[in-house]
């Protein structure tokens, strides 16, 4: 029997297989694309085509649908593999000049005496993202926003390069080093909280997360509270907001106190 004879309806295997498979497909398509959409009382369709499109997964905007509520502005910073590669000496130099206006809060050497973050040796990606967010309004602060609003893309890149280049120095307000609290090394699995350390250092570091060692306790606490209350919303996909909302006040205190007590020198180099 040749292939031609195989693929004819005289071949009972061919006709049965095609009939069963085709019949089943048509039947399941009728049920899945027409019957089931209408069987759901809470869904309203303008016509049959509307129902089929909906069940087929074609997104559609209905005129009657309420317009989405406009939420707070979200982060638009995009970091690609090419954004921050090997900064030039000129870039670092320009960053140093620009950074003079930051020194009043963040310190002339990137070490703050005003409960602002220490920026010396912070990851370039972090500085880059936060400046971008301050400029776009995704993150706001009465003091910081006016500084950021007129920065160009190049200036943001230069500042990131400069602060990443500075050596990490001991914080201005060192306290005795504390033991690692559970929230830092284990998180709280039952509440869906990953360990702080799995992104912010101590265990591991993830792109875009700052190292926190030696930062001001007041600042860390304030940021966690802002994430929890929704006062700060520039975290990607609500990662930090989800965590901060689930943290207890005691855990917030422990995490902030722990990181503040750590010397910044222990942050591992990722260059």
């Amino acid at each position, binding site marked *: 029997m040749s292939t031609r004879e195989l693929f004819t309806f005289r071949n009972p295997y061919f006709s049965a297989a095609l009939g069963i498979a085709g019949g089943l497909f048509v039947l399941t398509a009728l049920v*899945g694309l027409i019957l089931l959409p209408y069987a759901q009382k809470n869904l309203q369709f303008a016509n049959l085509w509307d129902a089929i499109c909906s069940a087929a997964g074609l997104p559609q905007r209905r005129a009657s649908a309420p317009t989405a509520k406009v939420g707070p502005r979200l982060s638009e910073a995009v970091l690609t593999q090419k954004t921050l590669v090997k900064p030039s000496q000129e870039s670092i130099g320009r960053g140093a000049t620009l950074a003079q206006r930051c020194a009043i809060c963040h310190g002339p050497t990137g070490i703050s005496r005003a409960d602002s973050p220490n920026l010396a040796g912070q990851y370039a990606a972090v500085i880059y993202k936060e400046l971008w967010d301050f400029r776009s309004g995704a993150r706001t602060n009465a003091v910081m926003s006016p500084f950021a609003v007129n920065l160009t893309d190049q200036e943001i890149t230069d500042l990131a390069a400069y602060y990443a280049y500075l050596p990490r120095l001991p914080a201005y307000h060192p306290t005795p080093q504390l033991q690692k609290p559970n929230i830092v090394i284990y998180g709280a699995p039952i509440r869906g909280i990953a360990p702080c350390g799995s992104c912010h250092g101590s265990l591991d570091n993830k792109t875009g997360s700052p190292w926190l060692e030696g930062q001001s306790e007041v600042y860390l606490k304030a940021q966690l509270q802002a994430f929890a209350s929704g006062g700060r919303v520039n975290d990607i996909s609500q990662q930090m907001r989800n965590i901060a909302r689930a943290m207890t006040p005691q855990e917030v205190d422990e995490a902030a106190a722990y990181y503040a007590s750590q010397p910044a020198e222990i942050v591992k180099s990722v260059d």
Partner: protein
Amino acid sequence: MLVNRKLILAHFWLAFAAFGLALCLGAWQMFIRSPLGTWLSNPEFYYRSLTAHGTVMGYVFPTLVAMGFGYAITESALKQPLVGARWAWAGFWLIVVGAIMAMIPVALGRASVLYTFYPPLIGNAFYYIGVVLVVVGSWIWVALMSINLHIWRRQHPNEPVPLAMFANVAGSYLWAWTAVGAALELLLQIIPVAIGWRTTIDAGLARVFFSWTLHAIVYFWLMPTYIAYYTIVPRAIGGRLYSDTMARISFILFLVVAMPIGMHHTFADPQVGAGFKFIHSTFTALVALPTLLTVFTICASVEIAARLRGGRGPFGWIAALPWHNPMMLALAFSFVMLGFGGAGGLINMSYQLDATIHNTQWITGHFHLIFGGAIVIMYFAIAYDLWPHLTGRDLPDLRLIRAQLWLWFVGMIVTTFPWHWVGILGMPRRMAYYDYADPAIAPQAFSVTLSAIGGLILLISGLLFLFNLATAHRQPAAEAGAYRFSVPVHPVRSVPIALNTFAIWVALMIELTVTNYGYPILSLAARSDTSVPAVYVGAQ
């Protein structure tokens, strides 16, 4: 007639060595997430281990077993030396290179993306390229199976293809087509992002592509097991195969219906329409057919063996079975695990019931019971059965072999039953540790502990398996004779051409893929607003 014994042994040994390593990782994972271990303070190590375990157990181990077994079947069933042995070695080395290339970034923590890839997570490009090499190596095997069958057909026109080879080639065609989904995902989507040519990825489309592979791959894993059911077990226990036709229909059904059903893995995904989920759900129900046919045919074949041994009565024949025979034992264990696993699978495939267990430990329990249990225990049996023919030496001690099979069965039940249970209670999968001190999940601590003990039993059994195979090489030489397959009750003189060729069935497999996947893939690919930024693992 096994000519290329070295080739076949190389495949089996590499498969089992990789399996042994991945088994150690699995047992460690079971321990570390249980109340027996202290919390792993860096979850990254867990995901690293999980990625290695899944990649080896999912891609490397079963592929090598299917390939080695396929070469053995080609030579012994067709009674002709393998054509293209050099190509077969090339495929083998591609898999070796690919597996090593994939495992280095995983070990370094640069590719902790799990074996299902999970875009938009993106790991080191070498991980994906390594996996692609493994798949390409296996495609050489697919081509060789087809070519060898073609050569045999030319020399034996109008003769029925031996069942073992027919099933083997069906399995290879299924693999060739089902691997295309993951290959498309890797080549079109993930690798360009991993290399840095693009920085966004359509995660939804990638998941649909993966579902194309993810379910039919299970049936590819299953093929050697089903081939063993039909063509080895009846012979090994001294019986006859009840029906050759039923066997062919089962393998054809697997080839056709394993493909268009993968979207039951995406029931919780928003990018797939509910209508298509329903279509896939219904088609998934069809895969119960070849399994039920198989259970019926094999039970009938086993009954024939028992009655030939003097078994009587409606159930009395069960006692007359050769229970000391490792193959009998493996078959019984495999069927019990297939029964429970299959029953659990009915819940996974139903669109509504799935919601209760989706992404819980139930799923992990399910696929370990089916794959690690029902399927892998037959891989052991295949190896024990083939070993004397490959090594030219007898197996050392049947008691140790029986003990190993018993341990694997008990270990798998002890591991997976509590796993299913905690899944029903809502325990999520893919977590490095759980807070058993919390009253909400404290009652699950006992079940998880039990499960970890099961993992330990499996580890012991797996090591014993390797020991049994290794010591066989030091036994005195003994001629095992020609490797034979089971004979059907009614000799097969002629087979309808549709049951002797693949053209209709491969065409139907592709056609159903087009109807069931065409629209979801094209509609996602055509949209411009579905890409998300990639999340690079281990990047700074």
